[in-house]
Each structure stands twice: as structure tokens, then as C-alpha cells.
């Protein structure tokens, strides 16, 4: 600790910097690539561009379909978050607050979703969405996403609700507040930390989802940004600078969001993981 | 067996100075208690002796050897933590044995020392249990056992009894005193509880705001506190502090009299006061009073005393037990 403490600290920092370079290198190369000409990418993929060309970035920003992809993703993600929070919290409230015949069984039933991956039922899910006539609509993505997110949401919500002071309900009950009203007037407002955590978790998952939109969305008008990105990539196979600019512009909101909400993201992803 | 010498020890955390610079001698074989209110730097000082904390200035020597730059394990010390710090995944035996194993002590030697510690601390039947299966007192014993087997020159204790209930605390206090007698080792003990300090120590170090207020034997501190702080910190109930004019002195600012050194009389005396609350403890009675001239006062009288609330009584301090302090709060001879 004392002797060689400095050497050890230097070793630690250099290891950390090497790993950081491994992590950031591809991201930096991507962002810089969007400023370069295709020829320059070929000769100088990592370094700073000789001249900063804004045309690729501007071209994408002026492209209405880029905004349509982002808009679709945003609407789908927000609605998924809203539905998951509302439906999940309502169910978790019942499990936390009311004892009734079969409640444990129903709770275990709803937790089954924790066990298996999304992809297992993707084919029948596609048929179900098709038969419901909602193929190519936002709901085709929102409803299955919500359904698959419910298990973890209910588990986390119930744990949190059970830790709210029981006297609060009793006091409100004595004042004539019923179960349903208590949920909306007390439980939900008091649960903002867990709502925020689950909300960010669900948002990130929905925002990044690829497989489900790929299966249930067919028209470009309905495409979410991951689909749009693959579409773009397909159209500009060799124009790496355009593709890189596109990628940069789509991951930029994610990075900004991550920096702003990192507390909830880390809590949701690791805390949720540990509890799940 | 070792003494501890601290010379010009200073410690800051960032820009916050916790210990401005202090000297202390802990004699070989003594039971020295560092006592003071929370935040006075006593735990930091103990951690500096242990080597867990590096002083920003000054030197630490143990057994005549400068150890300021040595690892904790190379200082010939052992430490018992407030939280016990037992390894939850190891059995009692493994917990006690851990340090010996790290030091590559031969197996038969290790076995002998663990068995010996277990015998002294009555842990024989618990050796295969995990800490989670032990009571607070048993955990405390394991923590002590872990420090005994290392056969250190200096034992360090960081508020070891504060997590125990009152009855257990008294019992462990006695056991600690016995341990000290048996090993004859130097013990440095941190606490905020002045009762623990008075009963355990042969040398008490009273700290306040990062500096030492007074070092001395328990009765010395009780009888001749060097500052107002020590006077009010040591002793329970607290010493009364009054303006010096109450005892007819103009050369001092304050006069201090312990509650047990004030006589209470219904008919006549020096000060008139009104009874506020009477606490009958059986063996003695603590009376809280309010004096119009000098504010609140506390008096302790032997035996049972029946006094009505709001009764007016006369108080007289024993003159040989009046302590005088100057404007800086320092004792006048």
C-alpha cells in the first residue's frame, strides 16, 4: 500500500485507460467517420478528419424519414412505459394490499415471464398480432412489449408497495378512502422512485428493441429507428460515412438520455437484475 | 508487550483538520482509554495507531520502533472493531485462524493457539458455527479471540461494547478487565462512554475537538479535572458549573461542584433553590433544582429523600470539593 503504491496506482490507471480506449474507440471512430469523405475513411479510419464535412449529418437531419423513425420509436416507447407502469402497478397494488383467494397463484403466474426469452414465442406472437388486425400499427409492438415487461415490473412494484407504511392506508381508510382511490391518490404518487426506475428500464428496452418490430412492422411509415437504420444501411451499402452519420445521430439521444438518467438506469438494470 | 508513542500527530481529510498536532505516551502494559464526544478525533487517532489511517504529520512508534510507514500487520497490533467485523462466510474457528493462516504459521501451532483462545473466551462449543448463528456477546468474544491469537504487543479496541445491551456491556467490561490482567498487554480502548472509561482504564485520555484535554488516572480526572470540559465530561450526573461569585471568589470565572459534593438542608445554607424533579434511585437520590441566582443545579444525596416538587431548600457546597476555572476554562490551582 505504501511502497509501490504509486506504481500500483499507475498500473491501475493504465489498465483502465486501455479498457476505456477499447470501449470508446469504435464509438469515436463512428462519430468522426460521419465527418469524413469515403476515401478518407479508407485511409484514416481512426484519426480526426482532414476537413470536417457536415453534409452527411445535415443530409440525414433534413431527411423526414429519419425523424419519422425516431418519432415512431418515441411514441412506441412512451406508450409502452405508460401502459407497463399503469397496468403493472395496478396489479402489484392488488397483490401487495389485498389478500384474496388465489392471489399467490396469480402472482406466480404473472412472474412466469421472468423465466424465458422473448424469442421463444415470437412466431405465434406474430400470428396473434396478425389475427388481431394490428400488424403494422404501434400497438403491434406496444402490447407484446408491455406484456413481456409486466413480470419484472410487478415484482419490483410489489416489493416497493409492501414497504410503504401500512398505517398510511389505515389512516386513509378511516377517513373513508377506498382501495381504488388510495391506489391513485397515495400509492402511485408515493412510488415515484420505483416508477422512475422501472420506467427508464422499460423505455431503454423498448427503444432498443429490434426483433419484435422487425417481425410485426412492414411499412416504412411505421418503422422504428433500429429498422430504419438497417433499411438505410441496406440502401447505402458502401457509403460508410452516411451510415456512420446515421448511427451517430441515432445513438446520440441514447447517450444524452443515459447521462441524464444514469442513476435510474443503473438502479433499474442492475437492481432489477439482482432482484429478478 | 510494547508502549506507544505519538509525536506531533496531525491528520486532515482534505481541507478539514481533524487532529491539529498531538503528543501522547501510552505506557507498556497500561489500559489506556481514549474518551470524548463523537467527532473529537478519538477513533481517527486509534486508526492512526493501527495504520489503517496515515497521519498527515508526525510519528507513531510502537515498542520503541518507528512504525509510521509500516503496514498495519507489521506493527504488532490487533484491533477489535465496533461492528466486530467477523467474516460471515467463515466459521468461528476459521475467523480466529485467518490471520495465522495468512502468516503461514505451522498448523500445530495454529491449532494450539486457536484452542487456547477458545478456552479463555469460552468459545469451545461454538467453533464450528458461523457468525450469523451467534449472539452479540458471542460475536464480541470471537472478535477478541481473533485478536488474542495474534499475540500482539498492543490491543486496540474501537468502541467494542457499543452494540451490546446494558447488562451484557457490564459483563463484557469485567471480562475485558480480566483479559488485561491475564495478558498484561498494552490496551488502547476508544469509547464515548465515560463510565466505561472510569471502570476500565488505568490511564484516561480525554479528547475534544482533535486535541487532548487531559491525561491521567481515573480518580485524578475526577478529583482534579484540568479543564471545565473534563470536569463536566467525567462524572455522572454532570458537575454543576456556577459563576465564581457563588462561592465568593472574584479571581475565577466559574466554579464547579459535583452533585455529590453539595449538602442539602431545609433550614439554612449558602444558596436557595426550588426543587424541580426528584429521581429516587434507591441507593441515592438525584435532585434537580432551579436557583434564581445561578440557574439549574443538580444534587445527589445518599439514601432515600422525600422532597416535594416546588419545595424551597438550602444548598451548601463542600469547600474542599469546589473547582475553580479561569476565563479560558482552565483549572486554577
Amino acid at each position, binding site marked *: 500500500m505504501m511502497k509501490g503504491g504509486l506504481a500500483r496506482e499507475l498500473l491501475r490507471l493504465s489498465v483502465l485507460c486501455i479498457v476505456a480506449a477499447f*470501449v470508446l474507440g*469504435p*464509438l469515436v*471512430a463512428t462519430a468522426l467517420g460521419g465527418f469524413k469523405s469515403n476515401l478518407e*475513411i479508407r485511409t484514416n*479510419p*481512426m484519426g480526426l478528419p482532414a476537413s470536417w464535412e457536415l453534409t452527411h449529418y445535415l443530409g440525414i437531419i433534413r431527411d423526414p424519414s429519419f425523424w419519422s423513425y425516431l418519432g415512431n420509436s418515441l411514441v412506441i416507447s412512451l406508450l409502452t412505459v405508460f401502459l407497463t407502469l399503469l397496468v403493472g402497478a*395496478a*396489479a402489484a*397494488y*392488488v397483490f401487495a394490499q*389485498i389478500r*384474496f383467494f388465489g392471489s399467490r397463484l*396469480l402472482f406466480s403466474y404473472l412472474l*412466469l*415471464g421472468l423465466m*424465458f*426469452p422473448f*424469442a421463444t*414465442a*415470437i*412466431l*405465434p406472437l*406474430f*400470428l*396473434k398480432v396478425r389475427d388481431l388486425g394490428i400488424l403494422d400499427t404501434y400497438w403491434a409492438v406496444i402490447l407484446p412489449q408491455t*406484456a*413481456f415487461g409486466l*413480470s419484472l415490473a*410487478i415484482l419490483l412494484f410489489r416489493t416497493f408497495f409492501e414497504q410503504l407504511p401500512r398505517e398510511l392506508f389505515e389512516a386513509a381508510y378511516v377517513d373513508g378512502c377506498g*382501495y*381504488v382511490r388510495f*391506489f391513485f391518490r397515495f400509492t402511485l404518487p408515493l412510488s415515484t422512485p420505483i416508477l422512475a426506475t422501472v420506467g427508464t428500464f422499460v423505455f431503454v428496452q423498448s*427503444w*432498443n428493441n*429490434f*426483433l419484435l418490430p422487425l417481425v410485426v412492422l412492414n411499412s416504412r411509415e411505421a418503422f422504428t429507428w*433500429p429498422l430504419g*437504420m*438497417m433499411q438505410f444501411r441496406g440502401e447505402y451499402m458502401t457509403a*460508410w460515412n452516411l*451510415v456512420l452519420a446515421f448511427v451517430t445521430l*441515432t445513438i446520440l439521444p441514447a447517450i444524452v438520455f*443515459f*447521462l441524464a438518467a*444514469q442513476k435510474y438506469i*443503473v438502479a433499474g*438494470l442492475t437492481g432489477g*437484475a*439482482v432482484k429478478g | 508487550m510494547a508502549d506507544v508513542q505519538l509525536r506531533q500527530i496531525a491528520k486532515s481529510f482534505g481541507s478539514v483538520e481533524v487532529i491539529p498536532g498531538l503528543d501522547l505516551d501510552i505506557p507498556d502494559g497500561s489500559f489506556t482509554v481514549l474518551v470524548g464526544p463523537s467527532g473529537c478525533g478519538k477513533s481517527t487517532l486509534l486508526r492512526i495507531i493501527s495504520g489503517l489511517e496515515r497521519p498527515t504529520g508526525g510519528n507513531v512508534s510502537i515498542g520503541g520502533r518507528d512504525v509510521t510507514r509500516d*503496514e498495519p500487520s507489521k506493527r504488532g497490533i*490487533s*484491533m477489535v*472493531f465496533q461492528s466486530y*467485523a467477523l*467474516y460471515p462466510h467463515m466459521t468461528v474457528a476459521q475467523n480466529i485462524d*485467518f490471520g495465522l493462516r*495468512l502468516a503461514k504459521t505451522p498448523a500445530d501451532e495454529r491449532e494450539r493457539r486457536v484452542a487456547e483462545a477458545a478456552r479463555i473466551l469460552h468459545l469451545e462449543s461454538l467453533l464450528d458455527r458461523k457468525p450469523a448463528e451467534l449472539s452479540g456477546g458471542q460475536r464480541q468474544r470471537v472478535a477478541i479471540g*481473533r485478536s488474542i491469537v*495474534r499475540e500482539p504487543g498492543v490491543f486496540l479496541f474501537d468502541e467494542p461494547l457499543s452494540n451490546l445491551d446494558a447488562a451484557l456491556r457490564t459483563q463484557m467490561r469485567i471480562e475485558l478487565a480480566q483479559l488485561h490482567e491475564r495478558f498484561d498487554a498494552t490496551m488502547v480502548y476508544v469509547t464515548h462512554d465515560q463510565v466505561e472509561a472510569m471502570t476500565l482504564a488505568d490511564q484516561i485520555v480525554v479528547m475534544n475537538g482533535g486535541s487532548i484535554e487531559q491525561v491521567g488516572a481515573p480518580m485524578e480526572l475526577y478529583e482534579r479535572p484540568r479543564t471545565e470540559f473534563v470536569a463536566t465530561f467525567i462524572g455522572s450526573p454532570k458537575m454543576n458549573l456556577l459563576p465564581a461569585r457563588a462561592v465568593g471568589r472574584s479571581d475565577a470565572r466559574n466554579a464547579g461542584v459535583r452533585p455529590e459534593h453539595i449538602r442539602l438542608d431545609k433550614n439554612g445554607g449558602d444558596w436557595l433553590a426550588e426543587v424541580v424533579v426528584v429521581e429516587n434511585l434507591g441507593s441515592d437520590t438525584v435532585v434537580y433544582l432551579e436557583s434564581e441566582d445561578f440557574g439549574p443545579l443538580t444534587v445527589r444525596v445518599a439514601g432515600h429523600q422525600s422532597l416535594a416538587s416546588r419545595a424551597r431548600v438550602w444548598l451548601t457546597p463542600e469547600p474542599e470539593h469546589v473547582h475553580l476555572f479561569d476565563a479560558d476554562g482552565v483549572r486554577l490551582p
Partner: protein
Amino acid sequence: MSTIPESFPERVGRTLRDGRFTAVILLLPPALVLFSLFVIVPLAESGRYAFFDWNGYGEPADWVGFENFERMFGHSVFHQAIWNTIKLVLVSLLVQMPLALALALMIYRKTPTNAVFRLIFFLPFILAEIAAGLIWSFVFDGNYGVAAGITHAFGGEPYFVLGDRTWAFVAIMTVIVWKYFGFHMMIYIAALQGVPQDLVEAAKIEGAKTLDVVRHVQIPLIKPAIMVSAFFAIIGALQVFDVIIPLTNGGPSNSTQTVVTYLYTFGLSRLKIGFGSAVGIVLFLAAVLIAVFYQRFSNRAVSR
């Protein structure tokens, strides 16, 4: 408190009046309906369709028994997919998790520098898999990307690692480690911060070197977190899909298929509902098996 036992009608009446019944009837069904409709029913249907040869139109009529399963288990591409999944698990357990643990030990203490590194290492995890795949397909591109830059600098021929049957999957595993090690690291960091500092200090006093503390105190105490992270690594390996699509799309010559890309390529995109469902069922059984194993394993670890 009344001591007269409540009759059944009385109890029902009270439950109705205090709104408990309304609450259950109002708040629970949305979750139950959504979950059943989009999770449980499709899963059950998978179990049925797996025994049919069906293109998804009309009613499944062509009952084929276990033929779908037989074809799958006899298919060399499926073998490759399974083997690739196993490789992913091994890389996660043997490379990714030790790397994540080492880094976690380096930066679990709360200092500003550590917070920055934590943020950087965690960043890839929140990026979309599909974007990560695209970024790395640029890195690996033999004509343009970083790989091209390296071969160019050494004057070599353009080399396409993603087109090389032997090395393509190694490249994919690199991307997987890049994407997910930060997640595992965060789990370990949370656990390490929960280890009482006293225990570390006590060990130091007893002469433990940094590595002794790691081995004898910290790792044993964060074992539950390590188990959780192993569980997620294995379940995650079963699901790898998004990253593969932009990188190799399962190629070259199916050498980088995983179970889910296999399901997609040979079931979904050819509308072989029966065959795809059979693959889904195998995936489901594997997930259940892992969950059960994990339960057993973690219970035993806790009780020990």
C-alpha cells in the same frame, strides 16, 4: 372487535362495501389479460404448432408428430447454432466475467475518477444491440473500417474477418464482451460496495495483502452477485440475435448462427411456423432448465 363469526354473505357484503372487490376486479384483469394474450397463449400455441407443418394461413392441419424436432436435431446448422451458443457462454464465464470482476475491483470505490470510468464502461450496455453491431461491422470492414486501417498500415492485403469462417464468430464474441462486460461489472460494483469496509480493514490488520482480501473476503462475500451475473450471461447467450444481424447475418455459410438467428432464418423468414415453433420450444426448455438449475444452485449456496 366482534367475536361472532361472520357469515359468508356478511363477508361478501363487507368486501363489496369497502371497495376491496372493486379494486381486485378493476386493477388486476388488465395485467392478466395482456400477459395471457401475448405471453402465455403464444407460448402454449408454440407447443401445439411445433407438431404441425404449417405456413400460418388457415388452420394447422398437417400433423407431423416429432418430425420438426427430428429435422432440427439432424440439421448441421442447428448444431452449429448450439455450439456457438455454448461458445458464448464459455466466453462470458471465462473472459467477460473475470474481466468485469477485475475492473469492478479497480473502480468500486466512490471517487470522481472511478465514476467516470464506470460511466464509460457501462455505456455500451445501454446502446442498442443493432447499433453496436453496425458500429463493429464498420470496425471489422476490410475495405474501409479500422481493420482496413490496420492492414493498410502494415501493407497487408484487405482482410475481412467477418467473412472468415474460422474467425467470424471470434469477432462476434469480441463485440458481445464489449457490449456486456459493463453490465456484469456494475452488478459486482453494487455488491462490492455492500461489503462492510470493516471486514476489509480487519483482514488488512491480520496481514492480508490486497489479493488475499480479494480472494478470502471480497469474492466469497459477493458470491450471490457472481451467481446472478452468471445466470444473466447464460440466459443472455441464449438470446443473442440483434448483434449478429448487422455483423454477419448468420454467415458466412451459417457459421455464426445462434439459436435465435436460426429460428429467425429457418422458421420465421420462410414462414415455417411449425418448424420455428419447435425451435422456440427448445429455447424455452433450455431457459426453464437454466432457471431451475440456478434456483437449486443459489439455494444451496445460500444455505451453505
